């Protein structure tokens, strides 16, 4: 498998007050391979989300380098980074972050419609297919104020997938959802991963991590350990064992 992201010695520092700095990421080295389903765990403030934003180019590292499919993100201008995000990346957020004044279908289609050389009809077909896949096709023309949290997160996933990205980043995508919705979303993400799309999630929920095949553990800005597991199989459903194994591993690494 080829590498999709290569991060070398990345550091992220934030200036708080005059002379005071917060060192959020400390010399993190990481390689993500194409098609991997990765989760990042760790206590609050360990730098999980910061890592995600820096790997996706939404934030810039203070030192070190992040290479995404051959592009050194640090050397790119904001608008070049935006183009890469539009074409190759998809994002799912805990707060969902949909555009308030667009309907469900328009939110999903929007990233495709602002891309160059798109055929509107094809975009519409694709969006409908995604809505169907995530089970919210009936909401197509609804406004986002008319949907529940779980439904909205599915809209977010559809939007992330509309441009056929190479990687999906998720920042606590199930953080604000009930257990049923969480299950549904995880199953959709599993399906996406099985099609060969790389998925990288930040989570504090061991149930979410148990569905992935590689778990990274962060503490105090350091990437302290990683655990590889075989792909999760719904038919087999060994979630409980996977969860326990991850918990033990985290405790062992200082959780």
């Amino acid at each position, binding site marked *: 498998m080829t590498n999709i992201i290569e991060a070398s010695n990345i550091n992220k520092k934030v200036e708080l007050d005059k002379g005071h700095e917060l060192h959020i990421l400390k010399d993190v080295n990481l390689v993500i391979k194409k098609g991997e389903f990765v989760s990042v765990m760790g206590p609050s403030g360990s730098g999980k989300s910061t890592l995600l934003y820096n790997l996706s180019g939404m934030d810039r590292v203070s030192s070190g380098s992040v290479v995404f499919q051959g592009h050194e993100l640090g050397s790119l201008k904001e608008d070049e980074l935006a183009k890469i995000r539009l074409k190759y990346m998809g994002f799912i957020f805990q707060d969902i972050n949909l555009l308030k004044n667009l309907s469900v279908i328009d939110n999903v289609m*929007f990233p495709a419609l602002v891309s160059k050389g798109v055929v509107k009809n094809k975009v519409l077909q694709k969006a409908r297919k995604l809505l169907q896949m995530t089970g919210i096709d009936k909401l197509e023309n609804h406004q986002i104020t008319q949907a529940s949290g779980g439904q909205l997160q599915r809209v977010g996933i559809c939007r992330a997938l509309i441009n056929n990205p190479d990687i999906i980043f998720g920042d606590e995508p199930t953080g604000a959802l009930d257990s049923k919705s969480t299950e549904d979303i995880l199953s959709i993400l599993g399906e996406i991963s099985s099609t060969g799309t790389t998925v990288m999630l930040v989570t504090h929920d061991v149930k979410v991590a148990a569905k992935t095949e590689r778990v990274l553990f962060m503490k105090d800005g350091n990437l302290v350990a990683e655990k590889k597991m075989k792909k999760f199989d719904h038919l087999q459903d060994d979630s409980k064992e996977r969860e326990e194994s991850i918990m033990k591993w985290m405790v062992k690494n200082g959780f």
Partner: protein
Amino acid sequence: MYLKIIKNDFKRKKVITSTVFVFITLAVLLGSSATNIIANLIQSMSAFNLAAEPADITQMHVGDYDQIAIDQFTEAHQEQIAMQETMELLTIDGVNIHFRDNNSFAGTVQDISFVVQNTEFDFILDLNNEKLNVKEGEIAVPIYFMEEYELTIGELITVVQGAYKKQFVIADYARDFEMNSSLSSSKRFVINPKDYGDMLQGKVGEREYLIQFKLRENADSKKLQTEYIDSGLPANGPIVTGDMFLIFNALSDATIAIIIILISILLIIIASLSIRLTFLATIDEDLREIGVMKAIGLSNKDIKKVYLNKYRVMSVVAGIIGYLLSFVVINLFTSNMRLYLSSDLSGSLKYLLSLVAPLFVYLMIVLYCKKILKQIDKISAIEALRSNIMVRGKNRKYRFPLLQNKFFNTNIYMGIRDVWNRFKLYRLLILIFAVCTFIIILPLNLYNTMNSPEFTTYMGIGKSDVRIDLRRTDTISEDFKKLQEELQNDPGVEKFSAYITSSFPVKNKEGTWDYLNIETGDFSVFPLNYLNGRAPEKAGEISLSYANASSDGLNKKVGDEVIVEVVGEEKSLKVTGIYQDITNGGKTAKAHSSLGLNEDAVLWYIVYLDLREGVDKVKKMDHYQNMFVGAQVNDIQDYKKQTLGNMMNQLNSIVLGGIVIAGMIIVLITALFMKMLLSKDQSQIAIMRSIGLTSKQIQQQYVAGTLMVLIVGIILGVLASEFLGEFLFSLAMTSMGAARIEFIQIIWQTWILCPLILIVIVGVTITLCCKATFKKDLSIVLRG
């Protein structure tokens, strides 16, 4: 505590607070200046009036006159007349008055007279409002000429006519209550009695007389005028009353004051709208804080106080600054007044009167804020703390889905649909853009209208190339005939028409007789635009000027009859039309030539003519000027410019000022609005950026939306200035005799150049605002 909150608030919203502050200061500054101008104007007019003691009735007359008969008339009307004095004038052709190297007053449309200071009243003053006392060999020159020809004290003026030649040293400015304004067509130069005697001996110029009356309080001026004429006393020239001089003197400064007040009011409106904008933005940002304040038990009144105090402090500080600054800038506005009317407003009156503006602005702002702040009552603590609730559950109809877009790029479409979806927010901006456009276009239209050849319509004359005025001389009837024959045979003249104006007794609405100046001739040659009806075409027809037809005049409409006394016989004339005329106090009339003349009271002879294409106008004018020595030959455009010159120059400054003020307001408001909008949309922008939209694409959305709003604002502004402006201007001009002025629009200026300037200004402002905002760190916004 409150002060601390206000201080922090200032720090947090520097740009918005400063912008609103600037608007309030400007509004106070202009308001105070305008009050000051008006106070100045009233005080200087009264001081000027007191020092100059102008006549209440001035009867102009040329030719023989009998002072004894006038004295008897005065004696007989003692209960009405306080004083009478007859001023003798020597009217000299501008060609004969020279200054500097080979310059003369030849081109002026003004009648120039040399006079000696009166002894009883109607005094001509110096710039200190002291009676002029001109020494031998010296001359005091009217302010109008000092300005027009940039003359200075100490320069020489030479009068040459025939064998007579005399050099005068300019010793002073002549401030003349009766003839200061460019709107009155005569100007008086004051010389020493000895020099005047020499001129008489040298047979220089033509003698004219101003038979002047100073009336007692409560005297009936109109009745006295009629009685004077009925007594058969000398009266072959027009009669001018004191209130006309007052209007002429105050007109240009009053116009400026009114325009400044108008701009000041617009600024107060804009400041209020900005506060509303600010509040809309703040309430959104501060929603949680309001919730916390409510939750910990602060009453609505206390919370409002926090906001209100901020604007109270702001209005007080801005009011003080604007008030103080007004005393610095007032000089810019009153230079014309200082020169023509008086030196300066004295005493503490101006300080007191100027306080009206800041107090008014303060009250307006506080009342307006109180009104907006009522919204706080509607917000519950829970709603405020969980601000998302406010968004949830609102199921408005979804309009403009993205797939409906057939013509635009998706980002441009997003911008345009945003305007529709948040129209409440944008409508403020539309209003502001419309007001700014109005500020630019109204003076521009005014300027273009006054500058256009069609403006002569409002001066009671049709569109023509040249106007020839014949001055009253002994040979005037022959000259007039000869001029017409000459024009008839001139191949360079395409068409011409001759008019004679004489004064006729006309029965007024009370059934008594008034004198009315009626112009006779063929009015089909240079047709006028009539407000109602048409020009008189045959015997028994008359048309009246608007002021004459109005209730203040004869109170007639088209179809009514007017009784005119012609050579002792009463004739009934039918009113065929009503036209606009701002000359001669607005009260004129036109009748068919068959009406004949009132030989004793012919006022003036005028010929209008058009030249054939390719004929050199200047050469032709020179030809007739040389042929008829007593004639005044003027290019119509020149005539208009000299008559309205002062006002045109002031308008020019107002057009430029309007563009600068509107430009400033637009930049500030657009920046303020964008800052508010971008901060309101911060999270939405971050979402779009996270999806992969470039800053350019997002910028496109805002530019498209705002420009659409601007275009709507421009259209409204232009239409408002065309219709509302036209209406307001006509209303203002009604008192002068023009009730329906149609603006001349120069399409490329109103619909292309001005909008283009505004679009560029707004476009650049939005781009700069967006650039500053998009620099913000994306992940911080997304993660809250």
